[in-house]
């Protein structure tokens, strides 16, 4: 087991390196940072000097070695746009993105699991058909359209929720949280729903499918025959059996939620990493883009590692295969 974990850790490092490499190579083509850093009246000579100072004239290999070398030493460099340390900028934005992702995930579970159970138990009901169709339409509308619609309905027309930003935040240690004020919760609700719609549908369908499968399995049939009450049957036996695959998939999806928050953050001006990344693309802020990608990759790798370990713990067959 220890060997397996070690092996996966080594592999994870390679994944991160590969992402860093890809991330770095793409920035060379995004645009010219210098023309974004200077004003219209700056002379070509001054621009050239700045380019030299930033090391942009060095060969690709030298630039990449410097980038990864600095990363490994924990030096994330300085933003071209704001001239601030990148590590600080990203660290400032992580809480906003993580909280948004977690709340979106919670919403998708709180709504998705009961909806999945219901639709599994009443597969022919009118409500089931309505739920299935509504969620299908929900995932068929692009996220950005949903976001803007929610803003205009609940923010502008009804005035229930703020239209942008995080609302009231509280500083807890180094973590700026919006989950401890009413204001913060009002602010997070719309973006979290926007981000969670897709997950919600996914969760619901997964729970429904697993639930239907379990309900047909022999031991549930025996239990029915033994006279176990339906309520206990559905919730204690059937539902708990569906949870392992559901949690696994949801875990895997969390990385995707974080990455897809780019769109949501842009629509709601949510001050998270995704928004920072989009701004960085606009200004060709290479250091910020690079570190953002590596941080995202880290989240993915971490989640994948945990999921893999879970698999191994659950399914002995996989353990043997992977160790062989």
């Amino acid at each position, binding site marked *: 087991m220890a060997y397996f974990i070690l092996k996966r850790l080594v*592999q*994870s490092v*390679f*994944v991160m390196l*590969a*992402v860093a490499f*890809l*991330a770095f*190579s*793409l*920035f*060379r*083509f*995004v645009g010219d940072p210098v023309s974004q850093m200077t004003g219209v009246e700056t002379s070509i000579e001054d621009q050239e000097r700045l380019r030299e100072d930033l090391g942009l004239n060095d060969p690709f290999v030298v630039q990449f070695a410097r980038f990864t070398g600095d990363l490994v030493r924990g030096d994330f460099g300085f933003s071209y746009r704001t001239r601030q340390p990148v590590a600080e900028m990203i660290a400032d934005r992580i809480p906003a993105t993580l909280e948004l992702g977690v709340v979106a995930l919670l919403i998708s579970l709180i709504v998705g699991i009961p909806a999945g159970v219901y639709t599994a138990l009443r597969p022919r009901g009118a409500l089931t058909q309505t739920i*299935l*169709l509504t969620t*299908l*339409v929900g*995932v*068929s*509308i*692009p*996220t*950005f*359209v949903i976001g*803007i619609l929610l803003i*205009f309905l609940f923010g502008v027309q009804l005035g229930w929720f703020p239209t942008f930003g995080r609302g009231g935040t509280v500083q807890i240690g180094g973590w700026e949280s919006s989950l401890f004020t009413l204001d913060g919760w009002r602010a997070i609700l719309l973006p979290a729903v926007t981000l969670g719609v897709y997950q919600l549908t996914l969760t619901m369908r997964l729970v429904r*499918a697993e639930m*239907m*499968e379990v309900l*047909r399995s022999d031991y549930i049939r025996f239990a029915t025959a033994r006279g176990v009450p339906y309520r206990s049957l559905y919730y204690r036996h059937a539902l708990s059996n569906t949870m392992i695959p559901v949690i696994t998939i949801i875990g895997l999806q969390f*990385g*995707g939620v974080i*990455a*897809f928050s*780019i*769109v949501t953050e*842009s629509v709601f001006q949510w001050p998270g990493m995704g928004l920072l990344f*989009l701004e960085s*693309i606009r200004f060709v802020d290479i250091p910020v883009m690079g570190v953002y*990608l590596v941080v*995202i*990759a880290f989240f*993915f*790798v971490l989640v*994948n590692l945990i999921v893999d370990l879970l698999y191994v713990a659950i399914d002995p*067959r*996989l353990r043997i*295969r992977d160790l*062989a």
Partner: protein
Amino acid sequence: MWAFIKRSEPLWLFVHSPAAIIAAILALTIICGAAFAPWIALNNPYDLASFSLMDGLLPPVWQEGGRAPFWLGTDDQGRDMISSILYGARLSLMIGLAAMAIATVLGVGLGLAAGYIGGRFDAVVMRIADVQLALPAILTALLIDGIARGVLPTDVQQEFRVVVLTLAIALSLWVNFARTARASTFVEMNKDYVQAAMIQGQHPLRVMFIHILPNILGPLLVIMTVDLASAILLEATLSFLGIGLPADSPSLGTLIRIGMQFLLSGEWWILWVPSIFLVLLVVSINILGDFLRDVFNPRLR
């Protein structure tokens, strides 16, 4: 006789599923409209001389100021909405189908091989999959776009935008196929018939494609439909973020992005006509996907 019944079972199910019938009719209509766009459409959004700014911002005919033949109005460039949508759907479907096809071939091939060969090869493929997963679709698109900019001479870049976008979407979708194919292969490999075939010394490719692949076709088909839908949505999202297609070769996503500017200005049709159309298309594909899932997984019925 038995084979006939088995083959026609999906048909029987289909005839008895009104949702699937409606979805199929919708999808077919849209696909036909898109395919025959050059013959149906009033003007061609690619041909700048076929429309005029003078016809710009006309509302649908039932609203005051609307006039035939612009039944659903025109956009800010004077392009007929119906024509734009037909051409847009054509482009979106082309990108979606091509991306899905590439992703399927790539993903299934790698997944089958990884599951079958196992060991180091499996580890490498799955690590590549991890890297791919670690780069969200949006970032993959940026990457591919960036490489294309670096490699292709500037005068052909514009023409390759569609190819680049398709590749980007395909690359962000193949992992699903690979993972499913690999997992199913593991399961199938332990079954007696596959074990038997392997012991008989059949060629691995034969085992993979003749024995294993047909058994995992069901789930793959389901993923394909779902991914077709998400490819179309992804293209829309990328266009919204400004890394999709330019406005002069409008896909449904680009049309929606342009329409977003008119969300509040009163010209609602520029946003809502393509949006509703996109939703109809994606929903019908998704319903068909659901239907296929039910067909291939009878226990869910």
